[in-house]
């Protein structure tokens, strides 16, 4: 089974996410640019996603809002830079809970043997911005466990 790889190195304000999907790249691209499809997968199941705006073109704006079970809302918005294509979707990303802390994201889709490798590079303005994003922007209640520790150590060991 495919696994989402997240790389966040100390001292470098970036996050790189890679994941392989068992689908052609045009379809994976469509799932990222068609708001009706995006709303069906982005975020955990217990967070509702409302897409208010999704103008998939050079200079087009997007905005969506996550709502959790308690009714708390988390807004995000940004702008597409260049016409999005399977070669690259380049966009800014800003969590409305931390205005002004804008991140630049670039997603690429490479097809090989009917599968698509997606790679998303997020460049933050500072390591602090990145850490705050990871810590609070997409916060979820996750129970800590020894298993998580073992996973971390295994991951560090492998790298």
């Amino acid at each position: 089974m495919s696994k989402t790889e997240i790389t966040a190195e100390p001292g470098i304000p970036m996050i790189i996410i890679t994941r392989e999907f068992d689908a052609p790249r045009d379809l994976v691209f469509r799932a990222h640019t068609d708001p009706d499809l995006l709303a069906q997968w982005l975020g955990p199941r217990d967070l509702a996603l409302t897409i208010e705006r999704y103008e998939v073109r050079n200079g087009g704006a997007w905005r969506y809002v996550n709502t959790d079970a308690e009714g708390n809302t988390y807004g995000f918005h940004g702008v597409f830079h260049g016409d999005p294509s399977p070669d690259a979707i380049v966009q800014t990303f800003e969590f409305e809970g931390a205005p002004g802390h804008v991140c630049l994201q670039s997603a690429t889709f490479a097809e090989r043997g009917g599968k698509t490798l997606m790679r998303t590079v997020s460049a933050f303005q500072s390591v602090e911005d990145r850490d705050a994003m990871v810590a609070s922007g997409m916060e979820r209640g996750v129970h800590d466990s020894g298993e998580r520790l073992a996973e971390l150590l295994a991951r560090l060991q492998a790298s």
Partner: protein
Amino acid sequence: MSVKAPDRFDAVFAALSDPTRRSIVRRLAEGEATVLELAEPFPISLPAISRHLKVLEQAGLISRNRRATARLSRLEAEPLREVTTWLARYQRFWDESHERLDDLLAALQADEEQVSCHDPAATAKGDDDEQD
């Protein structure tokens, strides 16, 4: 000494970026140990082990105290808990999103196949085959 969490992450990750120090952390997860005990599996000098212990101590990952003549090192769980929780939340967000995307992509591809089965051209071709 109190360092706010994000600053401490850098020290914790840097401390864990070394294979010898990760081995020491795993050993200490089993219980306290002296420098001699910790040095035993490694082909490096005691002062080198002591330097590794100092890095781990500065990151808050271990504490050291003297019992009788031996100086014992012990694992401090809190910084590890903080960084694993920090990573785990973000990892979980994307794991779950991408699993949902897997399901969606599978459903979309199944739909496309179904559409091509009902394609009039495909049906016509099927009829031709039957006539043969």
